């Protein structure tokens, strides 16, 4: 019953998005979202509604963040579990939990005042795919590190002792025993983090530059879907609002499909080995 409740919340939310998006669907905006060239919904002369660059931006920013954060988080968790003395390990964990609790606006401000000027010196304007990726990576790092730690902690002691008994070094134990055994836990942590990254709004809006075009390099500004919703929802007229709901709906469905596919691929790989 409780499980059903948990599952039905998502139905409620999807239904809510569909209801919000309905006017836009009815007026046939869907093909425009796919085929328009620019995003200028407020223009009186030539309104255009290109969603694809934003979806691409959402995917790119998330991928960059995951690529940066996953190795760091998992390596950090291995270090935490197998190298760090217990007393220090507790503090390491506290720090990660603290990082998890830094409000997104603080990350955004830090990104805009510290990170963006640095990138700006390399390649203006600084507000870019790269900046958004780094800030997001920092935000999802604690989720990956903490869930990986918890997965590594639950690797049975007996397996580790057996590995030691066989004369395996720590490196071999980590790579051949601990990580494979904790793989599913680490995987679901990374998935959670990816989902979080796609949905993050307030920090990204501050550092991504918000230009709705396909980026040519990591130094180009981008505009993920969530940034558009955050920037325009409070100021949108009714038909524009329906479009934003539609954009949100498409984002949720795309990420759902993506994480589902990742999880499914993971499960299949698990069955093979």
């Amino acid at each position, binding site marked *: 019953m409780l499980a059903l409740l948990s599952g039905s919340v998502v139905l409620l939310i999807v239904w809510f998005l569909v209801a919000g998006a309905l006017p836009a669907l009815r007026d046939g905006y869907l093909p425009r979202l796919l085929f328009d060239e620019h995003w200028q919904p*407020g*223009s009186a002369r030539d309104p*255009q509604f290109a969603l694809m660059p934003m979806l691409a931006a959402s995917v790119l920013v998330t991928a960059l963040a995951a690529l940066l954060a996953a190795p760091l988080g998992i390596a950090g968790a291995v270090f935490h579990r197998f190298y760090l003395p217990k007393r220090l390990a507790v503090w390491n964990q506290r720090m990660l939990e603290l990082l998890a609790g830094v409000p997104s606006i603080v990350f955004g401000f830090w990104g*805009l005042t510290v990170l963006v000027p640095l990138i700006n010196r390399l390649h203006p304007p600084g507000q870019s795919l790269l900046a958004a990726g780094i800030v997001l990576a920092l935000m999802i790092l604690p989720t990956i590190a903490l869930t990986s730690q918890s997965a590594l902690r639950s690797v049975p002691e007996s397996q580790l002792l057996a590995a030691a008994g066989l004369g395996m070094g720590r490196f071999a134990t980590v790579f051949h025993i601990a990580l494979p055994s904790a793989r599913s836990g680490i995987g679901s942590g990374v998935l959670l983090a990816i989902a979080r990254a796609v949905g993050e709004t307030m920090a990204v809006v*501050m550092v991504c530059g*918000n230009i709705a075009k396909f980026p040519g390099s990591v130094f180009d*500004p981008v505009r993920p879907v969530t940034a558009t919703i955050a*920037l*325009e929802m409070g*100021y949108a007229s009714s038909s524009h609002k329906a479009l934003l709901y539609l954009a949100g709906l498409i984002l949720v469905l795309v990420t759902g499909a993506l994480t589902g596919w990742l999880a499914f691929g993971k499960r299949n790989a698990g069955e093979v080995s």
Partner: protein
Amino acid sequence: MMKSAPLLIGLSVLSLFSGCSREKREIIILTGSSTVAPVVTDAAKRFEATHPGVRIEVQTGGSSRGIADALSGLATFGMISRDLKADESELTAHRFAIDGVGIILHQTNPVTDFSRQQLIDIYTGKVTNWKELGGPDAKITVASKAEGRATLEVFLGYTGLDSADIKAGVIVGENQQAIKTVVADPNAIAYVSIGAAASEAAGGTPIKLVRCDGIEPTNENVAAGKFPIMRPLQLVSHGEIPATARDFLDFLTAPENADLIESHLYVSLSK
């Protein structure tokens, strides 16, 4: 663990009802622009102190939200930081303050003055280098506001441009984000609320306001109607206004409460 669920839900529902059962008070609800909300919140606090039976709820969500809530009756007043549009004529606007919109540059930028035509050239991408304006040889980073924002609409109104004409390098939301963008990029240009920019500059932030058409961007010039780019801060209502709400409206524009509006760096209409 599972057993406690109904108990907890029950408890929270119970506490909800205990909240509702308090004695009835007159409630004024205001929703809308995040620019207007802080100053109205402060005014509401002062009003409540002298009117014990009244409770004023201030909630944000943007100017469109204010319009929608005023129309649907969810809010007594909507708060907006722009003029009413032609299709919003069912509403009555009550202007209580003015906010000038000025052009800001990084402090190190030698340019000090823009004509309207220069601004148009910069924002449409005709002029892309500071060299052409007497500045250093560096590419201009054009910062503009997101679609629908009141400041953008005021800027478009002043320059006569359409939002599709603007070729921006970065797009920002709130004023503070525009200011931080200029701080982060010495070659950036942005347009923001004059009061906010002036007070940040006075607080040591390395930005500067520059002249438009030769007019200094100060609140005095905005108050005198000389400065060309400005927007009204107003409450909007739909239909009959209740007596207490009318009192609050008068309170907001009363000369003795002008200090509230000025402490938020807007131009009060009461002087």
